[in-house]
Structures are given as C-alpha cells and as structure tokens.
C-alpha cells in the first residue's frame, strides 16, 4: 500500500485536470461526483497506508519519484515521505476533504460555477497533500504556495462582488509576508546544513548543541511563515475576511486543513525548534496571545461565520501554544480534533445559512432548533466539543495543551484557560442566539426554513461522531488511558524527547487543573444560557449606542484600520510618488530622449548612402587599407 502513496495526491490532480478542461463537455453533477470519487479513492489509499504504518510501529518510508532540481550540490527530488505524522495528516485531509466534497454537492447545487468550484477544491486537496507528503522543505513550500493559490481562487470564488475580490487579494498579500520568511528560512537551512532534505537536516541537527544563533534564526523565519499561513498575530487579519468564500471552503481550507499547515511545519521541524528554546518561547507567547486576543474579538461578532473565523484563529493559537511548550503531540492532537469540530461547526453554519436563504447575521436568526433538528444536534455536539466538556474530543486535546503549558509556566496556563472560557462563552452565545428564542427573521425567511438535503446532513452526522469520540485516541494516562496518539507519533518526535523537561506534573495537580477548567467552563455555559436564553438578550442591530469596550471589540480593535494607516496608506503614497515623479518624469524622459537621439543621428548619417557605386567601392578600399595599416603598425 505504501508504494501507492503517489496516487494519493495524483488522484485529486487528475480530477482537477479533467473537470477544469472538460467542464463544458459533461453534466455538472458528473463534475461533483468525479471530484468526490477522486478524493474518496485517495482516502481509501490513505487509510491503507495508515493501518500499515500502525502495524509497522511508525517505520518511515520514502518514495522517490524523480529528480526535480539537480544543479551542482543542490539536489531536490520529488519524493514522498510516509511516516506517522504525514499518514495522520493524509487521513485528516482526504477524510474531511471527502466529507466536504459531499457536502458541497448539496450546498453549491444551484451555483453557476458548480464545476469550477469542484475543480478548485480538487486542486486544493492536491496541493495540501503535496505539502504534507514532501520529503524536503522545497516540496513543502511548493504545496504551501499551491494551497495559497487555491485559497485565493476560492475566497474570490464569487468574483462579481468586489469586496470578495478584495478579501482574496488580502489573503494572498498577507500570506506573501509570511512566505518571504519561510523562503529565507529554507535558504538559511540550505546554507547551514547543505541540504533541504528532512532526513539530512534533522539527522545533522541532532548532533548540534542547543541555542545556536543560526538555528534560532532559521526557526524564527520558519515561524514567520507559519504566522502568515496559520493566521497568528500579527498576520491573522486575512482569515476573518477569507469568510467571503463559500462556506464549505471556509470549513475545509480556513478551518480544518490549510491554516494548520504552519502547525504541521513546526511539528515536522520539531528537532530544530527544540534546539532553539528562545524561538519556542516566542511561539508559545504568540500562540497564547493569539488565543486570547482572537477570543475577545469573537465575543462581540454577530456574523455567524466571523465568530467561527475568530474562533479558528484562537484555536490555532492553542496549537502554537502547545508547540511552544514542547507538547508537539498535543499540537497535532488539537489540530486533529479541531479539524473535526471546526469543520463540523462551519458546515453546520453553512446549513443554517442555507436554511436562512443566505442570512449570516445571528441577530436575525433565533429559534431554529425545531426547523433544522439535525443541524441543531450536530452543532450542539460541535459547540460542546470546542468548549472542552469531557468526554468530547476538544476536552482531551485542550487539556493536554493546558497541562503542558502549566508545566512550563502557570501564566501561559492562565492565558490558555482564559481563552478557553471566552471560547465557551462566545460559542454558546452563537449557539443560543441561533437556535433558541423566537425567530427574528422576515416572514419570507420563516416560510423558507427547511432542513438541508441528505448530502449535507450526512457529513454533519459523521463529523459529529468524530467530534464527539475523536478524543479517545489520546486519553492521557492520568485518566486511565494509554494515549495511543502519543505512542503512534513517538518516532517523529523521538529526537526532541531528549531535550524535553524531565519533571512531570503529579496526578493530583493534573486532576485539580482539569477540574478547575471544566467547572469554570460549565459556569460560563450557564452564564451564557442565563443571558441569552432566560433573559433572551439579543445584541442591538444599531452599533452606534455601544459603550467603549464593546465598540472596540465589535470593530476588532481597529487592527485593520491600524494596518491601513501605518502600512497600506504609506505604501500607496510611495507608489503614487514613484509613478508621478520617477515613472513620468525620470524614466519616460530617459526613454524618450534615447529614441530622439537615435532619430537625429540617423537623419545625419543616412546622407552617406547616396547610391553612387563608385563612392561605395572607394569607401571599401580605403577602409581595407586603413585596417591593413592598423594591423601593420600593431605588430
């Protein structure tokens, strides 16, 4: 099965090619089925690879397909690395990818760009698989850029709306900043290790001492790349705007897979990060800050997708917090459970939007519980999972992160808990405002309310099961489990283990931490219930009466405005200056003068060409004689 790994990315690529080239020649439902079948087949192969990997105790396997670049000492292969980490990622990408393809068949049913949508989705899956399968940094970067492209295409999918186009461009440009850091990091890796192959780089890194400045520089640069792709402070602003894309895209790209690429990259390079404790500190602080910062914004957002977007930013912050405190398994574990429950929540939100005929403002919803029961139940499971109530999946992964954070610093733990409580609050606020109380939409919308078709509810149910039970693959020892995921991933993180902090928390401390978080979470749920159900509080549609702090949070701390003022406007000014002065005055003048000069000189010189043969011959003879004389005297 391992030898078939090349088929996993190639199948979606074939799907993309067939659909994009032939979409005018077959019916649109065929496009959806073809795209889904391609991803499903990739999922089946991934499943086979996964079980084989599990059976062989995580023995890594590299499949070299062919030479890609080979110049001098610089050699890069198109080669796929199959190890526990990539096999888990394969399952997440193809599994959730397939469910979302299925869901899109229902959600996008009436869209004129139906076939185009599926070709883009397949293209995305191809690049994402390339990203996680590559056995070197350059191939990862190729996938990294590819998913950025697919994300751009899908955010701006409804390109007739200018603000959606702007959102797409914003995502692309903000990601460029991060990508620059990533590229510089790769170059520095090549300079330092003479190779960009994981095996070579990590193999040599093990022998290095901790705290080398060059390793710190490499890891910081790579982290800048991760900040862009995984929407961390200060480069997170593109992700909430990316909600302009169709909802399945938000679920697949901007929640479950692409935005976790940064987490994957750091987990993959774990040994480099372990050797650079300063960088790990930066990662942990940025992660914790993002987790709290984004959560505070989430509390006051009224667009159902915006709330989920800020929640995604916040949860990504948790993953980076996990990586930063050295809990690489915890980061990957949370990546996985988050993929389950966030994809579920986004798809649920899509189902709500579908039922509401395109309405996204939760202030105009309410009471949807009895109209769309399947969505209601699955959304409830997703909300509980993200809040971290045992035994739902979010509890185990979040608990593991918080426990490790406490080990490193109680302050990080405190920030983590604070973010987690705010997450609970805004998620239940969203949940209660959407599904409870009286319906606040128009009569037309009320008439139109209906449960989504089977193709949409089945993925919801499957994801709900995963979100509910997915945590059991990582039950910690303290709760009597044996943490299967940790054992499975151990070969990948083995090298970093040596540097890990020795002391473990006592069981008593862990129980107390768990109890504190769970009790506080339940208190916050009750608080939200009291406010939004018992007192039926609904945020006012009129934003102008807000007091200072809610106003600040509704406007997302004015970060976009701040960036506009200090970066976008000066850049626009500079561009205007270079256009008006450099382009028009200097460059144009230079080019025009050269042209005029040539015209003038030729008008003089062409008089020599008189048509008189005798003169030509004389000129020739004189020239030959002159050349001969010059040669004679030069000897």
């Amino acid at each position, binding site marked *: 099965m391992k030898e078939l790994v090349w088929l996993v990315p190639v199948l979606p690529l074939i799907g993309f090619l067939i659909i994009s080239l032939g979409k005018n020649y077959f019916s649109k439902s065929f496009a959806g089925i073809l795209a889904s079948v391609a991803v499903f087949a990739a999922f089946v192969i991934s499943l086979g690879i996964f079980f084989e990997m599990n059976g062989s105790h995580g023995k890594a396997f590299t499949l070299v397909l062919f030479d890609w670049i080979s110049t001098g000492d610089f050699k890069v292969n198109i080669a796929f690395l199959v190890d526990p980490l990539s096999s888990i990622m394969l399952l997440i990408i193809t599994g959730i990818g397939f469910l979302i393809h299925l869901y899109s068949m229902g959600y996008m049913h009436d869209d004129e760009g139906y076939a185009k949508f599926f070709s883009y989705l397949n293209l995305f899956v191809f690049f994402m698989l390339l990203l996680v399968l590559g056995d070197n940094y350059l191939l990862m970067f190729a996938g990294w850029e590819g998913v950025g492209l697919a994300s751009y295409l899908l955010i701006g999918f409804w390109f007739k709306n200018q603000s959606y186009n702007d959102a797409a461009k914003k995502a692309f440009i903000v990601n460029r900043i991060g990508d620059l850091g990533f590229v510089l990091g790769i170059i520095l890796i090549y300079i330092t290790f003479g190779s960009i192959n994981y095996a070579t780089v990590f193999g040599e890194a093990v022998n290095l001492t901790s705290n080398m400045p060059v390793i710190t520089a490499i890891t910081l640069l790579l982290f800048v790349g991760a900040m862009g792709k995984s929407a961390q402070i200060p480069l997170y602003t593109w992700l909430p705007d990316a909600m302009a894309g169709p909802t399945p895209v938000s679920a697949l790209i901007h929640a479950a897979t692409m935005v976790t690429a940064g987490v994957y990259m750091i987990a993959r390079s774990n040994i480099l990060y372990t050797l650079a404790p300063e960088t790990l500190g930066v990662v942990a602080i940025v992660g914790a800050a993002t987790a709290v910062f984004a959560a505070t914004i989430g509390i006051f957002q009224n667009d159902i997708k915006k709330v989920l977007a800020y929640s995604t930013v916040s949860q990504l912050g948790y993953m980076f917090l996990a990586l930063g405190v050295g809990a690489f398994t915890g980061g990957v574990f949370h990546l996985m459970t988050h993929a389950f429950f966030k994809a579920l929540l986004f798809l649920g939100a899509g189902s709500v939007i579908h039922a509401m005929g395109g309405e996204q403002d939760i202030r105009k919803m309410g009471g949807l519980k009895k109209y769309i029961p399947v969505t209601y139940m699955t959304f409830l499971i997703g909300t509980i999972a993200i809040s971290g109530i045992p035994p739902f999946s979010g509890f185990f992964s979040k608990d593991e992160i918080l426990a490790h954070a406490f080990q490193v610093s109680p302050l990080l733990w405190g920030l983590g808990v604070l973010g987690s409580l705010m997450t609970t609050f805004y998620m239940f606020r969203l949940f209660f405002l959407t599904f409870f109380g009286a319906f606040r939409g128009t009569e037309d919308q009320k008439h139109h309310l209906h449960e989504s078709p089977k193709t949409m509810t089945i993925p919801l149910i499957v994801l709900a099961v995963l979100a509910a039970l997915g945590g059991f693959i990582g039950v910690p020892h303290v709760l009597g489990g044996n943490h299967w995921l940790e054992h499975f991933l151990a070969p990948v993180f083995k090298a970093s283990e040596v540097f890990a902090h020795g002391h473990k928390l006592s069981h008593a401390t862990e129980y107390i931490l768990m109890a504190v978080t769970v009790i506080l979470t339940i208190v916050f749920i009750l608080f939200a219930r009291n406010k939004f159900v018992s007192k039926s509080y609904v945020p006012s549609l009129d934003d102008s009466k807000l007091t200072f702090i809610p106003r600040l949070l509704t406007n997302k701390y004015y970060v976009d405005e701040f960036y506009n003022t200090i970066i976008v406007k000066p850049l626009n000014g500079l561009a205007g200056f270079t256009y008006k002065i450099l382009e028009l005055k200097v460059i144009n003048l230079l080019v025009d003068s050269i042209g005029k000069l040539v015209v003038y000189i030729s008008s003089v010189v*062409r*008089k020599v*060409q*008189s*048509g*008189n*043969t*005798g003169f030509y*011959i*004389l000129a020739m*003879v004189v020239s030959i004689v002159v050349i001969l004389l010059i040669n004679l005297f030069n000897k």
Partner: protein
Amino acid sequence: MEVIKAIPLNHYILLSAILFAIGVMGVLVRRNAIIIFMCIELMLNAVNLLMVAFSAHHGDGKGQVFVFFIMAVAAAEVAVGLSILIMIHRNTETTDVGFLNKLKF
C-alpha cells in the same frame, strides 16, 4: 617547377602587387561595368599568381590546388555576373554603373 624557381620570389610578389593595384584602380576609376568586371578578374589572377609562386618555392602543392578552386569559382562568377550585366543593359540601355543609383535612402 624549376623554371618558376629560376626567377626570384621578389619579382613575383612585385608583379602581382602591381597587377592587383591596377585592378583596384580600374574598379575605382572606370564606370563601364564590363571593365570593372575585368579589373576584378585581374585582382583575382594577381592573387593566383602569388599563390602559385609561393607554392612552387615552398614545394607544397596545396597553393596550386587553391588556385584551381579560385579559377573554377571565378568562371562561375563570371557566368552569373555577365548575365546580370546583360539584364542591366536590356533595362537601361547602358553599362555605366553611374546610372544604377536608385538604391538609396
């Protein structure tokens, strides 16, 4: 071979230089296309003479082989050149190169 060697090399060089100079002057001064043509032949043959002389003095046959090549090419060239001349004469009723001055800026 011995006959050629009997005369000193300098004489050959001088003679061919004079012949070549006459050719060049003819090309420069005369306006009749046929005469110019003959002057070109004169230059070619001045070179041929020089080559044969050197070839004999060095005892190396390669120079003479080249002379045959030049003669063959010259014959071909004359055939083409004269036919062009005939066409010029038919069109302009003259062989004066001064009349062929249409090709200019």
